[in-house]
């Protein structure tokens, strides 16, 4: 017995030591959008992050003798994520601009970027008109948005959070034209849709104010050592030909200086095999596509379930604490609990989630810096999701518990006291069984709503069933098919919990006489 205990303790100590060692060895973490082929993307169907930037990054890390990892991050969280130490570098085709340089530092550029209009071949964009002929134009935040608002202030511009969604809406015809990085548009859009007849319109546009000095790896301003090391590694891979080899492999030509692209260029051999692989997939039917992506989808479903279960635990805990505070707390505690329930139920769940995910980490670390209690706390997407969902539904749960407690006839508690029950016995024999019975219908409703709310974590980039379904739908050009799969997955979860919890409700309501009156 003692022996077993000791081995458990030593195993725990070893784990802690290992975790500490991993932190000390400081694996470098790079953020990537993972939706910017061929620079970075999720290779179907496993969802593994691959691409030119990943190969380049790994080659540079080999030169630096460090372990590296690429993590997916939605575009609008790149700079906040870097600043809050979620990762160490932004390796995701981020253009070096003066505006961004106020917040972070960049390494030397690893390629130059421009932008070019893309539209259907037969569409001519009137680029002399301030409103671009009234066409609906799509752009992404930052570079191309900057160019359009500066040069075409009258144009109708729609801003997309991800390049993938921008391309999707050009394909569906929701926007007439887009302004996009040409290498990306060529490989991610034009080549992949030969039948759609997309083409560049005019030459690449130039504006250093918007497109800056090129594309660099973003690092924190206080991380000068990392910046120097990365610059050194970049020079090394350029000098020994690795860089050239990788660019030729992916793009067919060296893009370091990024000369204007012509759409007539011949396809490089070996690169962009994804397009053809995809068309094979497509011809073999929808069901096969779903089967091909099923491991990725199942992983997403698993995450949705795990997230729901962990969140409901936090929800119940917060609900019990808040309900107790409102029932038996001192005056100020009751006030505080009241404010919490009002605020948590007033803010839309998506807003709470984004606020906690982006703002929460900054706040945590600012408190840490001010008080000196902790140096750095990382809030993973999963944690942020759990916290946000728990925060919101804890407020609803507290009302359910409070209502349930108040429904217990007071005479029963008095009777318990009268027959001499201890507080403990009173709770376990009288209060708890009835609390469960009265709270179960409310609990069922909250659980069903909570499960659906977990879909929102896909917006902060957590790979749940919605995220994986959407990613698979984009890759196969079948968003409808895959979103329908996600829809039915949720429906199945709802039916399962619905049936299960109703059974439980009936069990706890045994012996209750029903149907009095009507």
């Amino acid at each position, binding site marked *: 017995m003692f022996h077993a205990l000791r081995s458990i303790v030593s195993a725990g100590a070893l784990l802690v030591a290992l975790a500490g060692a991993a932190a000390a060895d400081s694996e470098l973490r790079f953020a990537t959008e993972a939706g910017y082929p061929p620079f970075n993307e999720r290779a179907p169907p496993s969802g593994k992050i691959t691409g030119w930037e990943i190969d380049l990054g790994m080659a540079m890390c080999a030169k630096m003798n460090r372990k590296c990892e690429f993590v997916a991050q939605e575009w609008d969280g790149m700079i906040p994520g870097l600043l809050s130490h979620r990762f160490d570098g932004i390796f995701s085709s981020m253009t070096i601009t003066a505006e961004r340089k106020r917040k972070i530092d960049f390494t030397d550029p690893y390629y130059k970027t421009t932008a070019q209009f893309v539209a259907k071949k037969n569409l001519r964009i009137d680029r002399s008109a301030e409103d671009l002929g009234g066409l609906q134009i799509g752009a992404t935040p*930052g570079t191309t948005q900057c160019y359009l608002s500066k040069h075409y202030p009258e144009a109708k511009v729609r801003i997309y959070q991800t390049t993938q969604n921008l391309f999707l809406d050009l394909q569906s015809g929701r926007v007439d034209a887009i302004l996009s990085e040409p290498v990306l548009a060529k490989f991610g859009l034009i080549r992949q849709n030969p039948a759609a007849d997309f083409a560049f319109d005019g030459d690449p546009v130039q504006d250093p104010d918007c497109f800056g000095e090129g594309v660099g790896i973003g690092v924190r301003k206080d991380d000068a050592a990392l910046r120097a090391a990365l610059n050194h590694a970049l020079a090394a891979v350029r000098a020994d030909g690795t860089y050239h080899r990788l660019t030729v492999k992916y793009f067919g030509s060296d893009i370091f200086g990024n000369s204007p692209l012509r759409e007539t260029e011949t396809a490089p051999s070996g690169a962009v095999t994804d397009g053809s692989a995809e068309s094979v997939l497509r011809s073999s039917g929808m069901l096969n596509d779903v089967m091909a992506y099923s491991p990725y989808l199942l992983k997403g479903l698993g995450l949705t379930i795990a997230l729901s279960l962990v969140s409901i635990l936090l929800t119940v805990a917060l609900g019990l604490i808040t309900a107790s505070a409102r029932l038996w707390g001192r005056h100020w505690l009751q006030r505080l609990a009241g404010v919490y329930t009002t605020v948590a139920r*007033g803010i839309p769940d998506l*807003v709470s989630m984004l606020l906690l995910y982006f703002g929460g980490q900054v*706040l945590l670390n600012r408190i840490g810096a001010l008080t000196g209690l902790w140096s750095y706390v990382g809030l993973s997407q999963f944690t942020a999701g759990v916290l946000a969902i728990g925060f919101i539904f804890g407020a609803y749960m507290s009302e359910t518990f409070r209502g349930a407690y108040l429904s217990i006839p007071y005479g029963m508690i008095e009777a318990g006291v009268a027959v001499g029950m201890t507080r403990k016995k009173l709770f376990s024999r009288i209060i708890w069984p009835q609390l469960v019975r009265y709270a179960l219908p409310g609990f069922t409703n909250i659980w069903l709503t909570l499960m*659906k709310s977990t*879909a929102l974590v896909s*917006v902060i980039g957590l790979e749940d069933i919605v995220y994986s379904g959407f990613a698979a739908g984009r890759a196969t050009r079948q*968003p409808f098919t895959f979103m329908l799969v996600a829809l039915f997955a949720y429906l199945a979860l709802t039916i399962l919990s619905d049936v299960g919890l109703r059974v439980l409700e009936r069990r706890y309501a045994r012996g209750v006489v029903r149907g009095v009156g009507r």
Partner: protein
Amino acid sequence: MSGVDAIRAFSAENSPLDFWLVFQNWGLFWTGLQNTLILLVISLIAGGVIAVPLAIVRATRVPVLDPLAYAFIYLIRGTPLLVQLYIIYYGLAQFGAVRNSVAWAVLQDPWWCALISFSIGTSAYTAEIFRAAIVDTPRGEVEAAIAAGMSRRLAMRRIILPSAFRRALPAYGNEVVFNLHTTALASTVTVIDVLGAARLLNNNYYLAAEGFVTAAVIYIAIVLTITRIFRFLERRLFRHLPQG
């Protein structure tokens, strides 16, 4: 003038939130607020129009239609609205037939897609609220209507529905708040609602919190206004009932 500069400097450098920047971009949030409120009101009206017949079908157990209505309501209430919105916005565009149809004029606009899915969503929840209220109509009211010689249709219109609407009011007030929360999803399909404005602001200035905090404050203000309105309505409509 230096006073303004001092505020700006304090806001940018010392304040935990750069409130001055938010203040300067009030026009963005104003646009967002208008979009949110218009989406909310129109989807509530459209959802209500769909919900009333659904509720009557469910409450009176119309054969054939009742199970269909139940299936529709269960499907909509049992799945996340985000997924429904994605199916309407990104999903339908998968089909050439949809893109070439007349409906595309509406479906190609993200604003309309958002409105359609919010209306469908709120219609399902509202139908359940109305159904419960209709079912709960006191037997005596219905008997009195029949005794006075009203047809079923007339009794429904004059007696049952008005009294059911009144009973449904508190629950419907909650649904209005939930629907407001739902409209925040519009920002995921490029509509500039209050949250969309917040995301744009954060994107343009590389901020983590300012936009979202502003959005949260605006949403809470709207929620408080909605609850005020409903409390007022309840007091007016329940005037005839004994208080307490």
